[in-house]
């Protein structure tokens, strides 16, 4: 599994994001969240992520559309470079990023 899902508490899922979060993982990322109910909140853990591309940013937007509420997607343990990418694209306005 490229994206390991761990239930945290009621309705909260923690998803481990892979080392290279890019276009080649798009189908698997979608399958991962679509096999869970959109009523869940998603905590995406970027601890292992060393590369991210613009397609991955598009994938995050699709997850946000899936759950229908921005407050239900959090991006955590992002490296400084990952944070920088998210900031360039103003994702701090639509996601909680730490």
């Amino acid at each position, binding site marked *: 599994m490229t994206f390991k899902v761990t239930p945290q508490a009621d309705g909260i899922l923690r998803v481990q994001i892979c080392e*290279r979060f*890019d276009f080649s993982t798009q189908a698997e990322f979608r399958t991962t969240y679509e096999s869970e109910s959109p009523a869940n909140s998603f905590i995406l853990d970027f601890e292992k992520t060393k*590369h991210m591309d613009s397609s991955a940013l598009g994938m995050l937007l699709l997850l946000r559309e899936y759950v229908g509420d921005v407050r239900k997607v959090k991006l955590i343990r992002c490296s400084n470079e990952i944070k920088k990418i998210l900031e360039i694209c103003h994702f701090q306005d639509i996601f909680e990023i730490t």
Partner: protein
Amino acid sequence: MTLFNRERLSISEYDDAMTYTISWKDDELTDIDVADCVGQLLTLLNLDESDHFRFGVILSELLINSIDHGLLGLSSSLKESADGFAEYYKLREEKLASLKKGQISMSAERYDSDNDKEEKLKLTLVDSGCGFDYSKLNNDFGIAAHSGRGIKLVRQYCDALTFSQGGRRVEVIYAINSG
């Protein structure tokens, strides 16, 4: 002077500049692995962590653009919905597998700039594809837009980004260690 030449990769030295070139032609493109090629080039360039990350983003975004939009003629407008997004990558796989003719050359030159005494990288990517009207590149789009982010990242990280030859050639100047 050519120092090294192995399959698709060549390394040459001229004055104090080192140039690393990877090129692909016709059926070599059908199994092109963007992550692997970018990784190889980055290893040769031996950059520190931040430059490695940022130049890696530039290389991947521009190589993917050359393949997807240049050679395969895919349109990002497909990516507007989850189904369209998946459709885009399904089409990409099919078109790439059946690609008969095409060329891409990706070249990174590491040199000392005479002007500002900085060490720089010049990346040049040329493809034999359909090109595009770069005067219509949209830099001002909404947060939730479904395309344009790749070029936005590249622009943010580099000193200069120049398209030419009808959009088939792109050149980037990147300052090493600029933080």
